[in-house]
């Protein structure tokens, strides 16, 4: 389609027809639209260098460079629209794909990502992130929630004073136990918009550029970080070729005021989803207690 998009009664989501990436999310009821670019990158894990012999490892996230490498410049996509789901399936590479879904009645965009086995034939450990980029002017601040108990403001510390550029590293990554919120820092009056990303597990995350949010979804390292394990963080996975991980991010776009009421129940549904049990034939005739 010249203008690939998926839509339900709450959201319209547009995609780049050439590169296949997410382009924009529109909250139809509130008349909010926010350009949102999302893609996958990998940081080259440091094996120690002239600055420090410290390698990236289980205890330390220490990338070899401040800028991650894109997994792919573009994504091969397949658009599927049925009565119950509209989805765009993106294939970035042999080891990185994602499905973006909208279902009727669902006020959030579901991104189901599958990453692995991470190739290390080039001798480089890789730390894979999913990064969201928006024009929100957030002044280097973002917010994390911890299961609805405590929303904390986080800010990228800019290293030496006056350094405008913050660089990734252990100090920059915060554990994202639950929703990670990207919202302008009040009192920026013209920005009432909040982008919330719900994770289905704890992930490292940060916001290194204004309006951007990155979450670490998978890592595969080749060197021990010399903190006592005496082995690299290199999980073999079921078939020994390297661990494959599948997870979900739920993305909500709403006003700052309305967002907590949206993301809190979604987070609980993510942690305690309904249990699906199957039975052959007509199964037990269950009475409601």
């Amino acid at each position: 389609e010249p203008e690939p998009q998926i839509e339900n009664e709450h959201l319209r989501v547009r995609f780049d027809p050439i590169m296949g990436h997410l382009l924009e999310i529109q909250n139809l009821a509130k008349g909010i639209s926010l350009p949102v670019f999302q893609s996958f990158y990998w940081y080259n894990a440091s094996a120690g260098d002239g600055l420090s012999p410290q390698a990236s490892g289980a205890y330390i996230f220490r990338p070899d460079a401040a800028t991650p490498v894109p997994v792919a410049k573009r994504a091969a996509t397949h658009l599927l629209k049925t009565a119950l789901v509209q989805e765009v399936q993106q294939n970035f590479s042999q080891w990185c794909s994602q499905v973006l879904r909208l279902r009727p009645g669902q006020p959030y965009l579901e991104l189901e990502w599958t990453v692995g086995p991470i190739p290390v034939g080039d001798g480089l450990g890789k730390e894979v992130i999913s990064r969201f980029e928006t024009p929100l002017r957030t002044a280097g601040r973002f917010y994390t929630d911890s299961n609805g108990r405590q929303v904390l403001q986080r800010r990228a510390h800019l290293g030496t004073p006056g350094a405008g550029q913050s660089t990734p590293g252990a100090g920059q990554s915060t554990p994202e136990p639950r929703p990670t919120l990207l919202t302008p820092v009040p009192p920026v009056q013209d920005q009432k918009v909040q982008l919330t990303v719900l994770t289905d597990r704890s992930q490292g995350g940060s916001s290194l550029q204004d309006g951007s949010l990155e979450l670490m979804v998978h890592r595969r390292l080749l060197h021990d970080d010399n903190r006592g394990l005496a082995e690299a963080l290199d999980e073999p996975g079921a078939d020994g070729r390297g661990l494959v991980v599948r997870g979900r991010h739920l993305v909500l776009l709403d006003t700052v005021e309305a967002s907590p009421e949206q993301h809190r129940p979604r987070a609980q549904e993510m942690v305690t989803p309904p249990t699906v049990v199957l039975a052959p034939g007509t199964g037990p005739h269950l009475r409601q207690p």
Partner: protein
Amino acid sequence: PGDSSVLREAVAVAQHHDAVAGTERQHVADDYARQLAKGWDSCQVLVANALSLLGGTKEPLVFCNGLNISVCPLSETTPHFTVILYNPLAWDVSWPVRLPVRATSYAVTDPQGRPVVPVSGVTRRLWGGAGGAPGELLFQAWAPPLGFSTFEVKQLSPGSTWDTPGWPSGTPWDPPRWPSG
């Protein structure tokens, strides 16, 4: 007998900072996973026992732990089965059920015996999952707070194409009005 203390013990052990942060050796990580999986299995027996008690039957109940990679031997091989959704939350949930299947046309009925429409079928793409079934059955299920719903699934003719009424984009989908919990 089902027993939730196995999982409670496994989760208690996994409070160690290594289990939380992943700073343990591989064989220790594997053992944390083994303990959690054993606890999970034991809890599934507990849930199955509770559902059998509520249903007054000894029907076998099956959990498909591989649904996230589209693997579920029962839905892939059985032309007639029941899906029970248990909702642990304190509010109604509407939940998309997505099951790997082999045939191409199914009828789904809701707890009140009414047909669930629409029912969609999608052909699984190469990267869609590890299972062997060529297709997936989708339908929107729901369950009341702290309660359950049962949906009956029957395979129609195996050969026909999916009766997937297209969902005209932009038209608000009117979800079925189901009895509130």
